[in-house]
């Protein structure tokens, strides 16, 4: 299901699940990739603009990607089990409009979802279409803490213009 470009439905929403951000996993990610004081140390975070230890935005983003890829792989495994052919997605040229509207604090649980936001055909690339997915993450208070629009090329079952 939904493995080829023709199968994608604009506006369809996929719930991706939740992730619990803890002081431990926040500091572990930050120590490797983003060791700013408000991601590394409770005391330093208190006197920062955020007021408490909070996750690197790249952790919030990476967790979304992990949940998204695992959800896609689950759909692919189910399709494979039904004997369907699996389209090879990719590559992804990038993303736009990524926002971290509120900090993700230690103790927060973020629930992510994905919406099919744009589907674009290319005349000069008839074998693939461009899918833009809108990702969102909400904390346990229902507040938006993450959003992003990621592009990926998806193969067409039938090349554009072919009959």
């Amino acid at each position, binding site marked *: 299901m939904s493995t080829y470009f023709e199968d994608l439905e604009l506006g369809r929403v996929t719930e991706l699940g939740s992730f619990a951000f803890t002081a431990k996993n926040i500091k572990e990610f930050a120590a490797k990739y983003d060791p700013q004081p408000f991601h590394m140390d409770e005391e330093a975070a208190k006197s920062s*603009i*955020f007021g408490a230890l909070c996750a690197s935005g790249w952790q919030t983003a990476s967790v979304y990607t992990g949940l998204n890829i695992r959800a896609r792989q689950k759909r692919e495994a189910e399709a494979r089990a039904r004997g369907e052919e699996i389209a090879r997605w*990719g590559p992804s040229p*990038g993303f736009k409009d990524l926002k971290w509207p509120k900090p993700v604090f230690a103790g927060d649980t973020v629930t992510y979802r994905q919406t099919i936001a744009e589907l674009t055909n290319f005349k000069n690339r008839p074998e693939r279409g461009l899918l833009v997915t809108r990702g969102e993450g909400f904390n346990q208070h229902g507040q938006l803490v993450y959003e992003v629009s990621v592009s990926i090329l998806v193969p067409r079952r039938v090349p554009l213009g072919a009959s």
Partner: protein
Amino acid sequence: MATDARAKRHYEDIVVGAPYEYGAYPVTKEEIFAFAHAYDPQPHHIDEEAAKLSLVKGLCASGWHSCAMFMRLFYDGMLADAASMGGPAIDQVKWLKPVRPGHVLKARSTCVEKRVMRSRPGVGICKMQHEMFNQDDELLMTMENAFFIAVRNPSAAARETGGAA
């Protein structure tokens, strides 16, 4: 303590149009695997044999890993001694070429515009264009974003900016 804090790079020290170059970050296969297993377990990031047969023709880092490694470069190169207040958004990232094991990453960042927040005169916003290269100067990734940085002398900076919103 106050003197130390003021010695850090502040809003006033960021020069519009002046490229700032920094690095290096060596990319290892082990780190590509570790990041991908946690956050992006696609075959071309976790399996060398499968990667050879994939569209990218060989093992490469997750694009999100590339962003995370860029963040570390940016931290070490610019933020560690700056009065940064974080960034609320990334306008755009382009993954132009795969980041491979053995690459040594470096980056170039240019502030293209800066202003002081009218509502918060102690906070400056710098709009940045970033480029990430490997050791052969191949451009691998570009990023556009804005980040917040403390203003050393809020009243003087606000006058200079003309009180932009």
